[in-house]
């Protein structure tokens, strides 16, 4: 005998596996066992075959390959004794499947066992056949199974009935052979046999139209009677589940009645009485009773109409909704969802209860209830329902707000009876959950606003109030900034006052204050700031007397490290200062946006890419294509004399091609380049290094300087950073070239662009600094949608993260409530030397399990003698929160007396639980 095959017992193997502390140990034990089983298999060892197969089943459950044991199953099945056969069939069901050819070899053994004198062996064979039969086996063995439907032992009859289900599913042609035997089985008194016979009957009706007709005619009456007896039967303890007699049989009976009654008025009529009895007599204080009621409701809903019953059924569901058991509420909502298409009116009556379920503590119930409410809304109830939902939005869980906001916006857009209501509701949603609102929603809001000329004044005043209280919701800020820019004069002069409004006094400087606050707010992203600049330009024309102040605010962005903002501010400054004659024509009120074509466009697929291909580059005033402008609301105002942050190529047709090229690289790129700033948030934070590299290598020259930002966050080592230097350098070169080209192409009024070009580092002179200038602050990735909530999180004592010579860096750490993975860091740099550090840039890199987001620094010059500091915010997301601690590599570069300095270090003294 093989030395291995004497082997361990099953019990010992399981013990050994359980004792393993690591996956590697477990693999070693399993490998050893498998080796000894293989050896036994090749030795054709008879004594331990069943034990080896039992081991293989356990090993298979753990997920290791066991194909070498398949033939052993067949050998055991062919063995004479019951015990071996039992293990053999068990292995057959677990280790093999119907597609394997090995299975063909078992047909003969099965045939013998189906004819065996031992009823337990017959039972085993039926069970195996019912679980794994292939079509061929079904054909070969159907006569045996059919015969066994009349076997003396009820256990065998039950199994034969269920085995027949597998057979007719595999070979529907065989259905007719089973119709008569089933008809006689349906007269059985034995509960188990009756239960299986009804299941077989249901499946026969599904696969064969003739069988359905037959049973409908011959058996409906019988089945109704059985159900009637079950409902009215005295207490039968052996089939009792929590006080209800044989609920499972009743459920199966109701299901077959559903199949028989569906689409047949006579049969449906016949079962009305018994269904009403079940619906009224069944006790609903136990799960089993509710299961019957639930099945009964489904049957009533599926059979032919009988108005009274349906009302009864929907009332049962209404009762379910106020049940304390979550499961019952869950199934009731599912069923109401189906019922709504059958009898919407009856469902409407339970609207109040359904609305309560939107506030359920169970998230899956909330979600279903919300979907159901969404289906229930119509012109008549939209106002009260929306009010309820918006009220709930105020108190709902953070993670439910997204869904809820989307549904409310959709309801309001779809069903709003009048524009003023639409605007009011959208403002409420924006104020409560503006950070969850999708870009296309507020775009659509602006379209509606421009279309309601009588409400311009009302809207801008409402928005003015809203932004005072909800300046942390980015979408409110954007819409408000846009409207104040556009309708600032109406705001100040209280034009178009409605009766319902309370008068307010807003001065020109109040209006400008709002925009100034928005542009300075650290949470505002590129799009918002760009929109603010645009609004300021408009206001400079609307409020001529404040234009000096506006010019000053615009000027503050001239030093912005974000190319887009820098460029805008320089251009706008030039327009305000030198081109007064042009200005008022440039910033005339926007033409009314076409609602129909906008909503049509939104219905189309790619909101973000489809419109952009036809942006007419370099066109000064676009009246033909307002939609396209809308898309780029923030960035490409139609009156913007220079619509693209990319310097437009000399002629517009090649410009379009170039845009095509740029876009051809993929939608993600458009989100990482400020050219599409208006859509940044729509794409989320997908921009990564790959995209960036694609962008750079795609041959489209003016990938602007901010683009390298994602590299800072994603690259896990400093060498990655360096490898980008060259690319970025080229990139800046290109940028310069393009700016120069541009200047040649359109010399006036953009002489200011010279400043822009020269503000970029000299190409090639110092590649390192080039890189740093480009992406010190972190422009492209927009801040997260909820930055404001940072303020009330957990805090930690500040740590000194880095100290070298005169330079020190402290981190103030805090957590945002509800998101333990995210750490907010405020970095503060101080310089104790007597020298001034200029061009100060801080970079950081983190391992892959972390994600780092850097906000722009407060400044890039660091005064000496610790007389000032630079602060910069970082956000670290730890994907392995609780398992790994935060670590970070940093690099600080600056110029000291015009000499490049570089300091590097690793920070590993973060608190452990970040």
């Amino acid at each position, binding site marked *: 005998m093989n030395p291995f095959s004497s082997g361990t*017992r*099953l*019990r010992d193997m*399981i013990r050994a596996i359980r004792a393993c502390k690591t996956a590697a140990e477990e693999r070693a034990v399993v490998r050893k066992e498998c080796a000894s089983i293989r050896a036994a298999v090749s030795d054709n060892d008879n004594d331990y075959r*069943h*034990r080896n197969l*039992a081991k293989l*089943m356990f090993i298979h*459950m*753990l*997920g290791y390959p*066991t194909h070498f044991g398949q033939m052993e199953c067949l050998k055991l099945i062919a063995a004479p004794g*019951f*015990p*071996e056969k*039992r*293990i053999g069939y*068990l292995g057959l069901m*677990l280790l093999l*499947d119907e597609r394997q050819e090995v299975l063909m070899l078992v047909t003969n053994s099965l045939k013998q066992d189906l004819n065996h004198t031992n009823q*337990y062996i017959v039972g085993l064979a039926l*069970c195996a056949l*019912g*679980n*794994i039969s292939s079509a061929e086996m079904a054909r070969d063995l159907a006569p045996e199974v059919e015969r066994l439907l009349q076997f003396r032992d009820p*256990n065998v009859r*039950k*199994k034969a009935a*269920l*085995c027949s*289900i597998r057979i007719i599913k595999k070979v529907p042609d065989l259905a007719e052979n089973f119709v008569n035997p089933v008809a006689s089985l349906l007269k059985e008194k034995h*509960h*188990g046999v009756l*239960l*299986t016979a009804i*299941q077989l009957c249901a499946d026969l009706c599904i696969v064969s139209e003739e069988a359905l007709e037959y049973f409908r005619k011959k058996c409906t009456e019988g089945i109704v009677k059985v159900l009637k007896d079950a409902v009215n039967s005295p207490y039968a303890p*052996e*089939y009792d*589940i929590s006080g209800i007699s044989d*609920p*499972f*049989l009743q459920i199966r009976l109701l*299901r077959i009645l559903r199949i028989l009654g569906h689409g047949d008025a006579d049969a449906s009529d016949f079962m009305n009485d018994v269904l009403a009895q079940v619906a009224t007599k069944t006790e609903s204080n136990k*799960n*089993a009773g*509710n*299961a019957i009621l*639930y*099945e009964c409701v489904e049957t009533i809903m599926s059979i032919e109409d009988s108005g009274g019953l349906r009302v009864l059924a929907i009332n049962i569901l209404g009762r379910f909704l106020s049940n304390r058991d*979550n*499961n*019952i*509420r*869950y*199934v009731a909502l599912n069923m109401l969802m189906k019922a709504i298409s059958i009898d919407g009116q009856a469902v409407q009556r339970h609207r109040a209860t359904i609305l309560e379920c939107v506030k359920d*503590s*169970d*998230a*899956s*119930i909330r979600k279903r209830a919300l979907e159901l409410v969404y289906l229930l809304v119509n012109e008549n109830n939209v106002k009260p329902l929306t009010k309820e939902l918006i009220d709930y939005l105020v108190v709902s869980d953070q993670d439910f707000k997204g869904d809820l906001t989307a549904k409310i916006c959709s309801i309001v857009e779809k069903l709003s009876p009048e524009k003023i209501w639409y605007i009011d509701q959208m403002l409420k949603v924006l104020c409560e959950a503006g950070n969850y609102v999708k870009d296309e929603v507020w775009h659509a809001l602006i379209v509606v606003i421009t279309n309601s000329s009588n409400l311009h004044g009302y809207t801008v005043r409402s928005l003015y109030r809203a932004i005072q209280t909800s300046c942390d919701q980015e979408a409110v800020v954007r819409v408000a900034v846009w409207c104040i820019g556009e309708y600032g004069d109406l705001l100040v002069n209280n034009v178009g006052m409605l009766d319902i409004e309370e008068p307010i006094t807003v001065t020109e400087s109040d209006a400008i204050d709002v925009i100034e606050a928005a542009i300075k707010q650290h949470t505002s992203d590129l799009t918002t700031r760009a929109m603010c600049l645009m609004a300021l330009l408009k206001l400079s024309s609307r409020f001529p007397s404040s234009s000096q102040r506006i010019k000053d605010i615009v000027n503050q962005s001239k030093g912005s490290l974000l190319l887009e903002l820098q460029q805008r501010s320089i251009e706008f400054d030039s327009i305000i200062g030198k081109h007064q004659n042009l200005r008022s024509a440039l910033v005339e009120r926007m033409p009314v946006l076409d609602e129909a074509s906008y909503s049509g466009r939104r219905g189309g697929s790619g909101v973000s890419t489809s419109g952009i291909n036809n942006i007419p580059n370099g066109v000064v005033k676009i009246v033909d294509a307002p939609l396209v402008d809308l898309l780029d609301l923030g960035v490409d105002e139609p009156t913007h004399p220079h619509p693209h942050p990319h310097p437009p190529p000399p002629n517009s047709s090649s410009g379009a091609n170039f845009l095509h090229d740029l876009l051809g690289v993929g939608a993600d790129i458009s989100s990482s380049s400020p050219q599409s700033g208006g859509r940044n948030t729509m794409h989320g934070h997908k921009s990564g290094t790959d995209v960036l590299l694609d962008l750079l290598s795609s041959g489209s020259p003016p990938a602007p300087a901010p683009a390298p930002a994602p590299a800072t966050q994603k690259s896990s080592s400093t060498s990655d950073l360096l490898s980008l230097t060259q690319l970025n350098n080229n990139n800046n070169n290109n940028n310069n070239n393009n700016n120069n080209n541009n200047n040649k192409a359109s010399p006036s009024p953009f002489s200011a662009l010279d400043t822009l070009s020269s503000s970029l580092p000299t190409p090639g002179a110092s590649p390192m600094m080039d890189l740093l200038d480009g992406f010190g602050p972190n422009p492209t990735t927009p801040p997260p949608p909820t930055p404001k909530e940072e303020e009330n999180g957990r805090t930690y004592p500040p740590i000194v993260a880095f100290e070298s010579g005169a330079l020190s860096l402290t981190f103030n750490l805090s957590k945002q409530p509800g998101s333990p993975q995210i750490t907010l860091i405020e970095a503060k740099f101080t310089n104790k030397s007597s020298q001034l550090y200029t061009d100060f840039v801080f970079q950081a890199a983190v391992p892959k399990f972390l994600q780092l987001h850097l906000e722009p620094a407060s400044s890039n010059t660091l005064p000496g003698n610790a007389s000032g500091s630079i602060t910069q915010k970082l956000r670290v997301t730890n994907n392995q929160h609780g398992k790994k601690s935060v670590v970070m590599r940093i690099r600080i570069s600056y110029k000291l007396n015009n000499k490049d300095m570089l300091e590097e270090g690793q920070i590993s003294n973060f608190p452990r639980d970040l």
Partner: protein
Amino acid sequence: MIRAVIIMNDEGKPRLVKFYDHQPMEKQQEIIRSIYGVLCSRAENVSNFVQADSTFGKDTRLVYKTFATLYFIVIFDDSENELAILDLMQVFVETLDKCFSNVCELDIVFNFNKVHTILDEIILGGQVVEMNSSEIVKAVNDISGSSLFLFLSL
């Protein structure tokens, strides 16, 4: 039709895996892992139903119930009644309890083949055979009686 019955412990280790429509082993493991991922992150005090469309196709649902350290999981399609499946699980557990007198996780680990035998008396080819737990116990005892010697020799 019932698609699968799975018992796993609260660490995600499978204790009984039975699929009624065949899945390759790698897929089985993937399903077990993804189910565990869903279940272990579920709050208490929520419904026992989970939509399983992503792993098993349209309109499939998963019902789970916890008993001590074990998750009992049944996956089924829309021809079954969710609430009835909850009762079915109750019957399954009651039967195990009768067969092992106060069943615990170790009983299921070491006697997994007997648990399979019990399950085969309750569900066959994804259809319910029997809901009466004393009938099931009787059938199982008849079988074990005739294969007593085999249980000893494993």
